[in-house]
């Protein structure tokens, strides 16, 4: 059905998106919880920073990542010298770019569902003997599960479609950072590859629809038929 080249592209895209979502998920949930539940000076600034990748041109986000995490970047040089890790120009860099771009959408979805959890239920748990952590794990976390599923789905879809930050930060290297959107873009540059582009576009549609349906199913299974992701 798919050619070996297409398989490489799809497998790479899935790996990049899944890793991006899995790594970003706990960070996004932590940020969402802090923004939803805590009042502290600088909360507005934190909220704005989290949303930055949503409003900046993706190329600018990619450029900022280069400055920060590139081999000579502030964090990048430290990562390389300490752990020998290089993020630019390989698939982990593509995952970082995708994760950063997905972060605001994931935080938004999770924050809404955390805010929807009645804080008085947490108070009730506390009077029954639950520590703050236990109350969080048994009340807030399970009740915000639909937001986690929604955030993961949105983040996955966003990662799958990530283009600007990825090509800027991780470049467009076949088999390494050439995900579906980059492959489609590359195909469009080559005369006579309309058929290949159409096939890749179809794959993108199928994957995105699949992600949406899987997360709907997950939410329905955990919450009964009343809950919806979107």
């Amino acid at each position, binding site marked *: 059905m798919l050619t070996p080249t297409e398989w490489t592209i799809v497998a790479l895209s899935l790996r990049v998106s899944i890793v991006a979502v899995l790594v970003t998920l706990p960070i996004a949930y932590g940020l969402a919880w802090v923004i939803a539940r805590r009042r502290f000076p600088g909360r507005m600034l934190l909220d704005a920073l989290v949303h930055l990748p949503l409003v900046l041109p993706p190329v600018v986000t990619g450029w900022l990542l280069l400055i920060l995490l590139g081999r000579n970047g502030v964090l990048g040089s430290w990562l390389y010298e300490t752990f020998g890790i290089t993020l630019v120009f390989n698939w982990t860099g593509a995952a970082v770019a995708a994760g950063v771009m997905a972060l605001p959408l994931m935080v938004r979805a999770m924050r809404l569902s955390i805010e929807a959890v009645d804080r008085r239920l947490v108070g*009730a748990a*506390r*009077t029954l003997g639950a*520590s703050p952590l*236990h109350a969080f794990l048994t009340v807030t976390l399970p*009740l915000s599960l639909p937001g986690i599923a929604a955030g993961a789905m949105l983040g996955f879809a966003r990662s799958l479609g990530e283009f600007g930050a990825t090509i800027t930060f991780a470049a467009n290297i076949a088999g390494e950072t050439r995900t579906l959107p980059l492959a489609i873009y590359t195909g469009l540059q080559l005369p006579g590859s309309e058929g290949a582009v159409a096939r890749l576009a179809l794959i993108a549609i199928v994957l995105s629809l699949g992600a949406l349906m899987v997360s709907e199913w997950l939410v329905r299974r955990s919450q009964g038929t009343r809950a919806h992701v979107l």
Partner: protein
Amino acid sequence: MFFDVDITMLVDDHAFTLQFVSDARLTALVGPSGVGKTSTLNAIAGLLRPRSGRIVVAGDVLFDSAADVDLPPEKRSAGYVFQDARLFPHKTVAANLAYGERLSAHSGSLISRDEVVRLLEIEHLLHRLPATLSGGEARRVAIGRALLSSPRFLLLDEPLSSLDESRAETLLVLIERLRDEIDLPMLLVSHSSAEVERLAGRVVTMTAHGPPGKP
């Protein structure tokens, strides 16, 4: 002395002072709406912090601003029955009942789960989710959940409000039995004078202005 409360609170720009001591098994807290009855229960349970003062229940100092004592709610062992039941919506009735029971495994339990289920007549509800319960059923489960957390005292916030007469009577009898059979200090907030007269050994009246009067 079961309850020894002397607090000043500020709730939504409304400041009030409340001082009372009671050694009755069931103390009723009465007064007009908005005077701070529920806030007082919240302060005793540790969910709201008084501006200053002291709260001692059954010999335990729960809050004392002068001595810098402010126990977190989970250390106060309050059995708090909220007016809105506040059952966990994602847990079955059985899991709601077990919630506090599991967390209080240390102390010898006051009452067994079987007894609670029998006393409150909630056997048939155990596998249901809170959303499917009527108001009276949810109230009974909330009382059971509080009792099973091995509380050292009970806080009841209008446990009979918005229940029809027969349901209210059933719960009233139940509270009387709890008062007489289990040795637990109780603080009851109520609007119904008939209810207070029947249950309470001591009535504390909160007024919008000035210190509370005595019955």
